């Protein structure tokens, strides 16, 4: 007959919670800092001199499991020098409605031209707006998401890698 006292104990547990402060984080008002290695919206990077890092090699498109990257390369000319290499990406599009944010494009890129940023608030009312063009990816991100302190939150190097 331990059922009855145990049942009553349960009521005590639920009642106690009412007087505690809820642990819910109120999202739009408070944005929890993302982890340092969080994979969000992509960015295309430039060198300090303004040239694009992307050389239009399409390795990112080949690596993409969701097949959401489209690259159309073109030759750099002395009059129109866009990137540091021989060729540049004339068209660079990412279909964000297909992207799974796996980060393989970032790994595949030989020049660190494409990296995944921290922005995650990228919903749109229209699917067409989710196809990001090169201009959008090159531009500095509109919304800045706070990032947690890497010293506190970044994952330490795993033991097996450290002692390999």
């Amino acid at each position, binding site marked *: 007959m331990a059922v009855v006292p145990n*049942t009553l104990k*349960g*009521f005590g547990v*639920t009642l106690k*919670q*009412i007087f505690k402060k*809820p642990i*819910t984080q*109120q999202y739009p008002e408070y944005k929890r800092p993302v982890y340092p290695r969080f994979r969000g919206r992509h960015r295309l990077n430039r060198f300090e001199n303004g040239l694009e890092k992307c050389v239009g090699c399409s390795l990112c498109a080949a690596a993409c499991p969701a097949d959401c990257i489209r690259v159309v390369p073109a030759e750099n000319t002395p009059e129109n020098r866009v990137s540091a290499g021989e060729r540049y990406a004339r068209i660079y599009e990412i279909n964000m409605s297909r992207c799974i944010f796996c980060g393989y494009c970032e790994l595949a890129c030989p020049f660190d031209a494409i990296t995944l940023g921290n922005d995650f608030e990228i919903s749109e009312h229209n699917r067409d707006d989710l196809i990001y063009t090169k201009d959008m990816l090159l531009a500095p991100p509109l919304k800045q998401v706070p990032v947690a302190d890497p010293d506190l939150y970044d994952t330490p190097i795993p033991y097996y890698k450290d002692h390999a």
Partner: protein
Amino acid sequence: MFVHHHEAWWIMLPKAFLVINIVMLFFAFTTWLERKLLGRMQNRYGPNRAGPKGLLVPIADLLKLIRKEAFAPIAAKEPLYIIAPVVSMFTALAAFSVLPWGPGWSFGHHYIRGTVVNVPISLILIFALGSIGIYGFIVGGWASESKYSLLGSMRTCAQLVSYEVSLALSVLGVVLMGQSLSLQEIVDKQQTTLWFFIPQAVGLIVFILGGIAETSRAPFDLPEADTELVAGYHTEYSGMRWGLFQSAEYINMITLSGLCVTLFFDGYHFPWVHSLDVVGPVWFVLKLFALVSIFIWLRATQPRLRYDQLMRFGWKILLPVATANAVVTAALVVAVK
């Protein structure tokens, strides 16, 4: 106290209209209270976006349900499919009409009674209306022409019919002590004696447990069983038709709490201070919402029963206890006389 007062029809009609709308308002804010309390018991805030403290959430729900497409399966038996939720809602609202919520007030020659209707068999009327409400559930499930709905309504009806027996038997003790089937007289009787929750403590426990099962609330919410079964008899209902079933369930809970307050906690009376009975509806509503909060507390605490556990509990524990309580009360009432 037992003087018969006549109430003019032009008082009765607007009063009935007012009471129905107040009950609907209670229903709306019971859903708010439930979400808020459940939220706080689970370390969440609960609704806090729509309006101050999320108080406009029921209104937003209503707007959403009304604007939503009321989809009906093509094979549904049309008139019955549409009437079923209406029947449930109607019986739920009608049952509230016999609950006494005030002592009655005289203004000059006019008299306002503290119930919508005062019938001598009001207790039986409530149970009868509750049983008719079950038709709404079983007909709704059958008329949907879907095997899941049909199975769901079988499940619902088996539960409701099983627990109705215990519920009715648990009330028998109160009827024997109150010497009446009129809720008004049972309330007045408690003024002269103890509140019935003390001598009828067993009856109260059986009544509350049976009532939770009867209004299909957790931990006896097998008709819906949100987490592991298809919704049950209202699987094929959407939009405001589903909303009617849902509101019928909540209004049943409010009526049942009201009945419990009337039978066991002396209805609209304030303990000891009789002069405060003038504002009877206030005490009635306070007691009612205390009970509703206990129902919500129970939902936040107890896990759902398995179906065989439900049936075993209903027939092998609740029913014998209720019967024994009725028999013992009858013997004691006769012995005291």
